[in-house]
């Protein structure tokens, strides 16, 4: 018996929530970024599941784009983090608060 759609959606939701918890509570910028990627992955899982249960391939094709965007985003984001590290010598997010009022 194949698992129903809601199982996949529940899994995707849980992964998203776990990633969100990581973004909120971790203090290392790189780990925050990885949790962000986790959230993206959960979204792709939901898309593929829906596309499979609907019988079309739109969702799958969309995952292409998500993958591409994720890759570009990771590249640029990590470049920013490296530049920030060069300027501030730290990647702990609570030490990077110079934009405060």
């Amino acid at each position, binding site marked *: *018996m*194949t*698992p*129903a*759609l*809601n*199982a*996949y*959606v*529940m*899994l995707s*939701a*849980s*992964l998203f*929530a*776990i*990633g*969100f*918890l990581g973004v*909120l*509570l*971790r*203090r*290392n910028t*790189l*780990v925050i970024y*990885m*949790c962000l*990627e*986790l959230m993206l*992955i959960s979204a*792709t*899982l939901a898309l*593929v599941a829906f*596309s*499979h*249960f*609907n*019988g*079309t*391939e*739109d969702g*799958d*094709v969309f*995952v*292409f*784009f998500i*993958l*591409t*965007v*994720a*890759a*570009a985003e990771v*590249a*640029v984001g*990590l*470049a920013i*983090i490296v530049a920030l590290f*060069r300027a501030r010598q730290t*990647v702990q997010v609570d030490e990077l608060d110079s934009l405060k009022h």
Partner: protein
Amino acid sequence: MEQIAFTLISLFTLACAVGVVLCKNAVNGAMCLLLCLAGIAGLFIQLHAYLLAFLLVWVYAGAVVALFLFIIMLLDMQGGKPLRIRGLQGAAGVVSAALLIVGLNLLAVRGKLASVAAPGHGVGSRLELYSDQLLTTYMLPVQVMGFLLLIAMLGVIVLSRRTDAAPSK
């Protein structure tokens, strides 16, 4: 049979996701992310999206996570600090994550998703269908993606330039 596989793989994925969040060392976290991706790839295969599963492993696990590891090793090898759930911030974090999990799952349970029947055989296992869609319906996004990648490349080059002061004599 599929149910058991699904259950195992999903539990494994969840455990690795929790591992990403909880690991003290960033490298360990990246490894957990890798395993998480492997689990997701397994789920994709179960959903008959074989191409995507391979793409996930090649692109995501192979390039993106590798890049993550490079940068982690470049910047942050001091060991790292653990997750700190203390004080107002910790409480708010836990509450919001709990709300999300509970909320989204309720949505999934109460919604009409359980009654959707699985189709017989997977649709997304043939490359022709993908390319057909990509080059007709989704032509615009493909071009935008190209543009996006170009910009990303330029951005990364600019950002990673050295900002030298006057050269030392």
